[in-house]
C-alpha cells in the first residue's frame, strides 16, 4: 500500500498532509515515528490513574499529531475525549470514548505498518 492508498483507507486527506509536510518521504517518516510512539498507552495509563490533567494533555497531544498527520478519524475520536477532560474529571462515563480512541489508533498504526 502506498501513502495515497493509506489515506484513502484511513479517511485522511493526502493532499492536505502533503501541503503541510511538503515531501512524501517526510509523511512516511512521521507516520512511522507516530506508530512507534506510545501516545495511546500514556492516555490509558492516565485514565487508569485518574490523573485527568495528564489525560487531557496526552489526548490533546494525540489530537494535535493526528491533525498534523491527517489521521482524521483518530483526530475526531481524540477531540471528543479531549473536551470531556478539558476541565478535569469527566462528568460522564468516558470508557466508550477511550475504547474508540484505542480502536482507531490501533487500526491506524496497523495500516501504517502496511505502507511500503
Amino acid at each position, binding site marked *: 500500500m502506498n501513502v495515497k492508498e493509506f489515506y484513502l483507507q484511513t479517511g485522511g486527506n493526502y493532499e492536505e498532509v502533503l501541503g*503541510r509536510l511538503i515531501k512524501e518521504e517526510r509523511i512516511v517518516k512521521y507516520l512511522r*515515528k507516530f506508530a512507534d510512539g506510545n501516545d495511546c498507552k500514556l492516555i490509558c495509563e492516565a485514565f487508569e490513574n485518574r490523573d485527568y490533567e495528564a489525560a487531557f494533555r496526552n489526548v*490533546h497531544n494525540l489530537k494535535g499529531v493526528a491533525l*498534523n498527520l491527517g489521521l482524521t478519524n483518530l483526530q475526531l475520536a481524540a477531540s471528543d475525549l479531549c473536551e470531556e477532560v478539558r476541565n478535569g474529571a469527566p462528568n460522564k462515563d468516558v470508557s466508550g470514548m477511550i475504547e474508540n480512541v484505542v480502536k482507531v489508533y490501533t487500526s491506524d498504526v496497523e495500516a501504517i505498518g502496511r505502507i511500503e
Partner: protein
Amino acid sequence: MKAKILVVDDVDLNREILNEILSDDYEVLEASNGEEALEIINREEDNLAGVLLDLQMPVMNGFEVLESMKRKGMLKRIPIIIITAEGSIENERHCYDYGVMEFIRKPFDGILVKLRVGNVVALNVYKNHLEDKVAEQTDELQVQNRRLKEQAEKLASSNQRIIEILGNVVESRNLESGQHVQRVKKYTEILARTMMENYPEYTISQEYIDVIVAASALHDVGKVAIPDSILLKPGKLTKEEFDIMKTHTTEGCKLIQNIEDVWSEEYERACYEICRHHHERFDGRGYPDGLGGDEIPLAAQIVSIADVYDALVHERVYKDAYSSGEAFRMIISGECGVFSPKLLECFIDARYQLEEVND
C-alpha cells in the same frame, strides 16, 4: 549566518515537523515546554529572530511564557507566532492582546508556515532596523538642535549688543536721557502684555514682546542725524526745523538698514518699524508715511503711545512735566494725535502699572 528561530511545543513530532520546514532558512532551536523556552529566550534574547509558541504545554504553558516575556519587555523585540490546536477566538484575541504577530491553527500548512514566519521575521528585522535608525536620527537631531540653540543664543546676544551700542550712541549725545529709554521699554512691555491678554486675535507671543521691548530702545536713534541747534532748541520749532526734526524717523531707518546680516531679521524688522513709524497716527495724520489704522505696525503703535506718555509726564527742553492724570486725559482726548481705540483701552487698563514705572 542563519537567523535563529525557537520552536516551543511539547510534542516531539510537531517540533520535528516545524524544524524540518524551517531548517533550510533558519537555525532552529527547540524547547518542549514554557520553562525550557524561557531559558533559551533569556540566553538568546539578542539573537532570536522569532519564537513559534504552542499554548497547551506541561510545566509552563504558552500564556505563562507570554506573561513572563511581557514583564521583561521582550515582546516588543522578539516576534511571537502562536501555533496551536487551541483554536478558540477567545484564545486568539487573548494572544493578540499580548502583541503576538501571528496566530496559526493546527493542522498547519507547511508552506504557509514558512511564508508567515518569513514575513514576521522580515518585518521585525525591518522594524528593529527602523527603530535603530530613528534612535540614530533622534541623536543627530538633538546635536543639531543643540547647535541651533547655541547659534540662536549667540544671535540673540548679538542682537542685544547692537541695540545696546546704538542706544549708547543716542545717550552719549544727550539726545534722550538714559532713563527715558528705560521707561519707554517698560511702558512698551506693559502695553504689549496688556494687548496680548486683552486681544488674543493679535497673537502676540512672549518672544515677540521681548523683541519689541528691546527694539523700542532705538525709537529715536535717528536723532543722531539731527543738528543740536534743532534738537536742543528750547522754544517752538519753525516749520523748516520741524521738517528736519521729522527726518529722525527715516534717518534712523537708514542706520538700521546698514546693519545688515549681523542680527536676526525679526529684530531688524521690529527696530525698523518702530524707528520709522513711531510718529504715525491712527487717523493717518502722523509722519513720515501718513499710514493709518492697522497699516501702522503694532510695535510702532505701542511704542508711539509709550513715547508720548513719557514725554508728557517728564520735563523737556521745550515744556514742563504734566501730571500722569493730565497726560492720560490729553492722550485719551486725542490732543496728542489719534491712537488705536484698542490700544487706548489697554493704555487705560494698564494705567496703574504705567504710573508705577514713574514712582
